[in-house]
C-alpha cells in the first residue's frame, strides 16, 4: 500500500487553505486549487491532521 493513501481528506470539510501544505515536514502535500494530493513522501507523522483549522484530514495507521 502506498504511503500516500494513508491520508484521507474530507473534501466537504476542506477549505483549501494550504495550512497542511506549509506544515508538512516532508513537503508531501500539494494543493491544486481545491484538491489536496499526498505524495509517497508522506511518513504519516500526522502534523497536518493537527494543524488543519477545520479537521478535514485523517491519517490511517498513524505512526
Amino acid at each position, binding site marked *: 500500500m502506498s504511503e500516500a493513501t494513508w491520508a484521507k481528506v474530507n473534501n466537504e470539510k476542506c477549505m483549501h*487553505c494550504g495550512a497542511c501544505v*506549509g506544515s508538512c515536514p516532508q513537503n508531501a502535500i500539494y494543493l491544486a*486549487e481545491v484538491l489536496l494530493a499526498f505524495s509517497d513522501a508522506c511518513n504519516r507523522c500526522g502534523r497536518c491532521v493537527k494543524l488543519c*483549522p477545520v*479537521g478535514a484530514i485523517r491519517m490511517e495507521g498513524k505512526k
Partner: protein
Amino acid sequence: MKFDYDIIVVGAGPAGSVTALHAAKKGAKVLLIEKRQEIGASLRCAEGISREGLEKAKLKIDRSWISTEIAGAKIVSPNGNVFRLDERNAGNEVGLVLNRHLFDKALAADAARAGAEIMLKTAATSLIKDEGKVRGIVGTSFGEPIKISAKCVVGADGYESQVGRWGGLNTTIKPSDITSCFQYRMTNLKAEPDFCEFLIGSVAPGGYAWIFPKGGDTANVGLGILGSRLKHPGEVKAYLDKFIKKDERLRCGQPLEAVAAAVSVSPPVEKAIADGLLLVGDAARVIDPITGGGIANGTIQAVFAGEVLGDCAQAGDFGEAALQKYEKLWRDQLENKLWRNWMAKEKLITLSDKTLDEVVKVLSECDIKSMSVYNLLAALKGKLPDLVKEFEEFI
C-alpha cells in the same frame, strides 16, 4: 541556451507582484504565475496593516483598495481589561484594513504595467535544474502540462513555501511556529467600527482573537491558535464559534465569508537564495511572529528582491553570489526585529491569563506617549518588575 524568461515569479500575492514590478521596471523579462483562477481570492488574511508598513514598502496608498481607516487598536485581556492605542500614542503604527481581493489585483496590475506577463491557473509542481542551478518550472496551465525556462525562479508561494524546498532551501517550520486560523467576515455586529481589537489569553491559546472593522457593522472576526497548543482536529473553528457565542457584540452577527489559513510565526529562513532561486514574503518566513502580519515585511523584502533581480538581469548573472546582495539588504532591514519578536513571542505565550490581566491593566493606567517595546516595558517596570526582567533582553 535561450530562456523563455529572465525571471519566473511563482505566486501573485503582494510579495510576488511587488518583486515582479521592480524587476520588470529594470528591464527584466518577467513572468508572474498564479495557481488560482483569480488574484487576491480566495481570502487567507485578516487584512490589517499599518500605514508605516505600506510606506516602507513604497506602496502609495490608493483608496480603491482600502476597506476601513482605523482610529486605533485595543488590546483586551481575558478579564476584559482594555489597553487602547490611538494615533496619539501609536502614530503611524495605526493602520488600515485592506480589501485584499482589490489590493492584490492592484499590485499585480502595477507589475503588468511595468511589463511583467501574468498567467493565471498556472501552477509550478517542480523545478527545472541544470548542474545545480534552477532553470525554470514544470507544472500545469489551465490543466495542460507546461515547462517554462528562466534564468531565475522566485518562490513567492506564501505559507505553503514549496518552491524553496524543491530547490533545496529549508523552509520547514515546527508546530510551535505555526498559527492555525479561522475567520468569518461577519455583519450585523455591535463592535466599534473604527478600532482593531486584539483579544489575548486562553480565548486563543498561543495566539489571539481579532475583530478588524470592514466598514459599518461588518468586521473580520477570527482567531489563531499555536500549533503546539492544539489538541483535537478541527478545534480552531470550534474555538472561534465559542468566542463569538460568548461575546454579545458578536453573537448577533451573521457570516458573509469563512476563511481558513495558517501563518508562520517563526524566525526567518536561514537562507533565502540559491543558484537561480530566490524566496520572498511568507515563503521566506518573514511574517511578524507577534502580530502574524506579513504584508509589510513581505513587500519591503520584495522591493529589494525586484531591484536586485533587475540588476542581475542586466548583468545576465543570477548565481548565488550575485543574489547575495538581496540577502544582505533584506536581512539588514528586517532580520533583527524578526528574531527579537520571535523570542518575545516565545515568552509571551507562557504568560497566564492572570498575568495578562495585570499587564493590560498596568498599561491602560499609564500614559504612554509613543508606542515602542521600550516604552511599554518601561511603563510595566515599576508595577511588574519580575515580569519585565524576563523581557529586558529584548530592548
